[in-house]
């Protein structure tokens, strides 16, 4: 198995593993990913936030790679050496990419349903400038209606292509896609029509920003005021393993479960997502795993385990 060294940590991974996946296995200093999604074939390579520097190609051909490479689409070679956060060049380039992603992205986070679970928000917190150098009007698109379940807010889209890959790979017919080109490319159906099939709701879960949100949850609450609980049901279409987002006793939203990289653990069907919003529909497993740093975990329920440090403090 090839050995790869990322930021001075060496790991052995199966042949064909990408640098990004190897970094995820190491678990620290993982390059961010806005378009790559391990569960979607052909995803990645587009957003460029995961760029890293390959300082040694492999044992066999030790030459460094001339340009930064997209870690999500570059396979490791035996003996490869990679610099991510230890390379000023990478950090610089990543800052540049984040700035590019933000020049046209509306800063409407206060009224965006994705706030609190937005990957671009996290990314700009980590790498963004405090002030935009872009002095021109932000690009806007005409709103189009893609049905009663999913809200498309094109102004916020960063063109990661994930939702088109969901439609291509999980649904019988893709009716939306990327239209036009360059800066004015847009996710659209061209002729107004609903994106409606049993798996279409997964587009919401894969969207890294607030471009695709759940219409049935719209403006009902902020995510950090809701309590995520794992639950399951016997579903004939999908795994039936979901997260229920409670406010009080009410289920405001159903989503798939997210792993630590923000990806769905398993895609769910629209029946589970939109039609099963009663506690009675579900077997509750307990509080969802939420990253301790996430705003969602901030103030509203006890952790599934007790923190020893706190206990000590309390006993004093």
């Amino acid at each position: 198995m090839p050995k790869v060294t990322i930021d001075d940590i060496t790991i052995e991974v199966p042949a064909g593993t990408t640098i990004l996946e190897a970094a995820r296995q190491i678990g620290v200093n993982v390059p961010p990913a806005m378009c790559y999604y391990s569960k979607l074939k052909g995803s990645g390579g587009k957003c460029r936030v995961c760029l890293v520097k390959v300082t040694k190609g492999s044992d066999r051909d030790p030459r460094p790679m001339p340009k930064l490479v997209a870690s999500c689409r570059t396979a490791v070679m035996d003996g490869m050496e990679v610099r991510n956060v230890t390379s000023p060049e990478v950090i610089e380039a990543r800052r540049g990419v984040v700035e590019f992603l933000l020049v046209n992205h509306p800063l409407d986070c206060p009224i965006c349903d994705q706030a609190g679970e937005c990957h671009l928000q996290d990314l700009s917190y980590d790498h963004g400038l405090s002030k935009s150098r872009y002095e021109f009007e932000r690009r806007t698109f005409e709103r189009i209606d893609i049905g009663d379940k999913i809200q498309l807010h094109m102004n916020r889209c960063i063109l990661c292509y994930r939702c088109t890959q969901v439609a291509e790979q999980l649904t019988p017919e893709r009716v939306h896609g990327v239209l036009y080109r360059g800066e004015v490319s847009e996710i659209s159906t061209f002729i107004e029509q609903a994106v409606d099939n049993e798996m279409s709701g997964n587009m919401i879960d894969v969207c890294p920003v607030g471009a695709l949100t759940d219409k049935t949850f719209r403006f009902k609450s902020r995510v950090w005021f809701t309590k995520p609980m794992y639950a399951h049901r016997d579903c004939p279409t999908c795994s039936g393993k979901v997260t229920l987002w409670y406010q009080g006793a009410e289920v405001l939203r159903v989503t798939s479960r997210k792993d630590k990289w923000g990806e769905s653990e398993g895609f769910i069907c629209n029946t589970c997502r939109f039609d099963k919003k009663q506690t009675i529909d579900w077997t509750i497993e307990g509080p969802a795993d939420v990253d301790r740093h996430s705003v969602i975990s901030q103030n509203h329920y006890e952790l599934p385990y007790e923190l020893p440090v706190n206990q000590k403090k309390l006993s004093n």
Partner: protein
Amino acid sequence: MVEVSRLLSHYPADRQKSALLPVLHIAQKEFGGWLNAESMDYVARLLHIHPIEVYEVATFYSMFHTEPVGKVLIEVCQTGPCCLNGAERIISYIEKKLNIKVGETTRDGMFTLKGVECLGACGYAPMFQIGETFYEHLTEEKVDAILADMRSKNS
């Protein structure tokens, strides 16, 4: 349709989508110089692909128009080398003469004026393209003659 089957024969049997660009060129010509949703859906059926695949492609390429255009589409090259030889003056001359701005169509629906990027005629600037024809080394007199000719041919 003969032409379409000839084009289809150029590509492997399981790769008929390859004919999309050439077929769209034909469709645009047949359906009045632009592509509406119906004509694109028709092309999708011909090639056994989903309509969205056609919309995605038609909106990507600058030669396909998803909005109506005038009978005569004048595409003036506005890229660097042409500008060094007076393309901008030719564009303003046409604008004044047709009383429209770049991107507009004359009220009688005769002419649409479009500024386009490099057409590969840098050595013969200034130039524009109408249909499949390149008109090069343009002068105001030449423009007058070409526009008059186009008007009489298309009235």
